[in-house]
Structure formats: structure tokens, C-alpha cells
């Protein structure tokens, strides 16, 4: 059974002064299997948050269906085993961090001893022990994000939904959030997070879906996406003079070192032989792969140009 399932979800929302309805989601279908970390990517305004709100029953899809652990998203019981961190967490300013986590624990009807134990453990884990008894209105953005994570985990969820968990965090904070996501993954928790920070998605996700203009335009395992897609190799050698390596144009020299860019694996073999034959020493060889960012930009550009093409055709 899929943990999360979107079936052809479409949603329009009122927009502007006359509240004209604008299509935000056109056709979103995806499913997330147990234990997966799924990155929901897309440019700003693509409909990521709207999709998550449909999942949580905050919005009713115009058509299509949403399921959490086999139950419809609008059923409160579906959210029993779910943890959610909203985008830019907004929490009650008059509560302290500890009171907030406690309040959300009560909404899960946890037994008092479990609630108190988990509350204090989680506050410790997100590094908020010192500030937990201060009112939330005094919190910085990073602190809000941390306390938001603590409340999202209070029910020991099977599925964690994180809306832009890294946004607004400093490098240390991002690292800590990443570690928490990796811990969850190790525990077998399913994680569904939206982000536009691709480097994070690349290191964390098993699978990514790219949302553009209300549609999933690309869905793939991260490994398949990046595997074998070496663009070129950066190669460095030592103790050899450039004229002993005819046919290879070094990109730079530093001290006795020569830097080359080799376009393919076969040529790399030949290059290594040439360096060794000339009595040189290979210092370093590193593949340069496509990053998720390259795909992201490529896919978004592709979509944009095909949209423009369609518009041109229509006007012609």
C-alpha cells in the first residue's frame, strides 16, 4: 500500500480582486512507497504547497483523489500517523515552545507520560532545550523551524510531510535538519518534502518529482537520474612535461601539475596510459556528473519553451 497517493488531482483557487479561479494544480499523480524519501521539487508558484494542502485535507481537490495510508486525505483519522511542518511555520506567539509541542501532542490524544517524554526528547533533539520556555514571539526563523520539526514528530509518525524544511536556515541549521531527515529514513519513516534547494534533495531523496505549472513533468529515482551521466572527467597529473602528452590540451598548470578535462571514459584510459608512458603520475581523476539542478533547469526550460511553442501555434 502506498503511503501517499495522488490520483489526477486538479485544483483551482480564487485569484485577484474578482476572485476569478485560476488553475493551480492541473493533473498531479504520484505515489510514495513506505520508507521512501520523496523530494517534491519545482519552482516557486508551481503548486507544491497547494498539493500538500490537498493532501492534508486543508483544500478539497476539484477532481481526483488523495490518500494517506489508504484513507482519504479529508478523513481526520488519516492524519493520526502523520507529522506536518508547514512552510514558514506560524505558531501561536503567546505560547512557549514547550507549550506548543505539548498542545500538539494533546491533539493526538497521546497518554500524558508519553506526551511529556516525547516532548522533552524532541525539544532536546532539535537543539531547543535552552529556549523552550521562552515565548514563541521571541524566536528567530531558525528556531521556529526547529520547534516546528519537534511538533511534527510528536506522534512518532509513519509519514512526515515537510514543506520547505530548509528555507531560512543557516548552514548549521540545514545540516541539522538533514540529519533529522536521515535519522527518520534510517528508522523507516516515509518522508515527503518539498523544496527548491536541489542540492539538499540530491543528498536526501530516493525519488524526486518535479512539479511545473500544476503538473508533474518529471519523476525519477535520484540514482537513475544521476547514474552514468558523467559529462566529463577532471584529471590531474604530475611529473610530466606538456610536450610529452601530444593531443591533450591542458587547461591549467600549477607548479609541476597539469589539469585536463577529458570528455569520455575511453579517452580517459588512453590519457592515463599516455601519462604513465611518459613517466608521469596520475594525481587525481574525478567524474563531473549532471546535478539535479541541471535537470531541473533543463526540464523547466523545456516546459517553458513548449508552452511558448503552443502559444505561438495558437496565435498562428
Amino acid at each position, binding site marked *: 500500500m502506498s503511503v501517499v497517493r495522488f490520483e489526477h488531482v486538479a485544483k483551482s483557487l480564487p485569484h485577484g480582486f474578482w476572485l476569478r479561479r485560476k488553475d493551480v494544480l492541473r493533473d498531479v499523480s504520484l505515489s510514495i512507497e513506505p520508507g521512501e524519501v520523496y523530494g517534491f521539487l519545482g519552482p516557486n508558484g508551481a503548486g507544491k504547497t497547494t498539493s500538500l494542502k490537498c493532501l492534508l*485535507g*486543508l*483544500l478539497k481537490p476539484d477532481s481526483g483523489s488523495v490518500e494517506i495510508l489508504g484513507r482519504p486525505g479529508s478523513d481526520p483519522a488519516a492524519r493520526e500517523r502523520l507529522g506536518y511542518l*508547514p512552510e514558514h511555520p506560524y505558531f*501561536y506567539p503567546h505560547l512557549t515552545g514547550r507549550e506548543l509541542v505539548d498542545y500538539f501532542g494533546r*491533539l493526538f490524544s497521546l497518554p500524558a507520560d508519553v506526551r511529556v517524554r516525547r516532548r522533552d526528547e524532541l525539544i532536546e533533539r532539535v537543539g531547543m532545550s535552552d529556549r523552550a520556555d521562552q515565548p514563541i514571539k521571541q524566536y528567530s526563523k531558525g528556531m521556529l523551524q526547529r520547534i516546528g520539526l519537534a511538533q511534527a514528530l510528536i506522534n512518532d509518525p509513519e509519514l512526515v510531510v515537510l514543506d520547505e524544511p530548509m528555507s531560512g536556515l543557516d548552514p548549521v541549521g540545514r545540516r541539522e535538519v538533514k540529519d533529522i531527515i536521515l535519522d527518520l529514513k534510517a528508522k523507516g519513516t516515509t518522508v515527503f518534502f518539498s523544496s527548491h534547494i536541489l542540492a539538499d534533495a540530491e543528498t536526501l531523496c530516493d525519488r524526486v518529482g518535479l512539479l511545473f505549472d500544476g503538473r508533474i513533468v518529471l519523476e525519477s529515482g535520484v540514482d537513475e537520474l544521476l547514474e552514468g551521466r558523467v559529462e566529463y572527467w577532471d584529471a590531474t597529473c604530475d611529473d610530466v612535461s606538456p610536450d610529452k602528452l601530444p593531443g591533450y590540451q591542458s587547461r591549467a598548470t600549477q607548479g609541476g601539475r597539469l589539469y585536463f578535462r577529458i570528455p569520455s571514459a575511453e579517452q580517459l584510459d588512453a590519457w592515463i596510459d599516455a601519462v604513465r608512458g611518459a613517466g608521469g603520475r596520475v594525481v587525481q581523476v574525478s567524474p563531473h556528473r549532471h546535478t539535479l539542478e541541471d535537470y531541473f533547469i533543463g526540464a523547466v526550460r523545456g516546459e517553458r519553451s513548449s508552452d511558448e511553442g503552443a502559444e505561438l501555434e495558437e496565435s498562428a
Partner: protein
Amino acid sequence: MSGRLWAIANHTFKEAVRDRILVLFLIFAFAMMAASTVLSWLTVGSELKIVTDLGLGALAIFGTAIAIFIGITLVHKEVEKKTIYAVLAKPVSRWEFLVGKYFGLMLTLAVVTGLMAVFYTALVWWKGGEFPSHLFAAVLLTYMELSIITAVALVFSSFTTPMLAAVFTVAVYVVGHLTWGLASFVDLAPGAGTQSLVTVLYYILPDLETFNIRSRVVHRLPVTTGYVVDAVGYSLAYTAGMLALATVLFRRRDLT
């Protein structure tokens, strides 16, 4: 009461009492009650009546002001400040959220009304008056009126802005105190259409004057237990109807 309902009610109460505005309202209420002693000097012989009358009036007015002021923002504030997302992402149904908020405000109003009643009683006692015999009934019925007003405010709060909700709720409050006028207007209204409109309004709007037994208390007229029981029952039924309506309106709403 389910744990969730109680958690939401308790949280709403906490939010209200941590807001300075509530303290401000209370200070004004106390000040107005205390001012009634000054006014009473202007009259001869009926000093105590002025104090009892104005004091109970102040209790009702400030109770109503707090009910409307907090009631109209109960839902809207959560949507506006986006705090509602994290709450409704928990296994909380929309009706639990609304009813929890309602109970939270009623809890706040119980405490506030209680404090005002204590202050009032102390004032009357200090002026040498004896304890008005039906004081408890008068305060209880005021509280039952607040229950209806809060529920009406919640209905409006569940789909419109605080400003409009305030206007609508105040309108219901004012007209609710004049429904006896509507009843007599039915026969005078021109045309059957107007007549049936007025009749419908008469039945839809709450009859808030039912809960006003203040003059009976001041003039030491009898108040029967049956009357109080009927009024409480009326309030509970009307409140339940309003909460059901608020739930229907709120359940359909998209929380963008």
C-alpha cells in the same frame, strides 16, 4: 468532552487570558461599576437601586463586548496568521476545532463574568445593600445570553472578516433585544410578503430580551425557577443550532 476538544478549548482560554485586551476590558467594567456609586449620589432614596441596576448592566455590556470582540476573531485570526494549518493537519476535525474554540471562549467568559459578579457583589455589600435575591439567576441568564452571542459571532467568524463579523453580530445583538417589536410589527406590516419576512426574522433571530431579568432583580420582583430553566434550555438549543451552522459553513471552506 474528548481530549482534543478540551485541548483546543484550554488553548483558546490560555490565548485569551494572555492577551492584555481582556484585562483592559475588566478594568473598564470595574471602573464602570464603581462609577455607578458616584451616579447614585445624584438620586435621593434610591442609591442602592442605581448601584444594583448599573452594576448588572455593566456586567452584561462588558460580557457582550468581550464575547463579540474575541468571538469574531476566533477563526479568522487562526486563518490569517496561518496557525490553523498545523492544527488541522492533526487528527482534528473541523467541528472539533470550532466547538473547541467556542468552549474556550465560554470558559474565558465564565471566569470574566465570575470576577465581575464578585466585584459587583462586594460593591453592593459595601453600599450597605443586602444580597439581591435573584442575583445568581440574573448572572446565569446573562451568561446564557453570552453563549448565544458567542455562537453567532463564531458563525460569522467562520466565513467572513472580523470587521463584517462584528457588524453582523452587533446587528443580531441589537435586533435580538427588540424581537418583541418584530412580533407586534407583523400585524402592522403592509402586504403578505413583508409580513412573512418579518415572521421568519422573528423566528430566526434570538430573543435576547428573555435573558434580561435585571429590572426584576433590582425591583425585587419574583423570578420563577421554571422561567430560568426555560431560558437556559432556549439558550442551549439556539447555541447548538448556531454551532451546527458554523460547522456546515466552515467544513466547506478551503483554507488557502
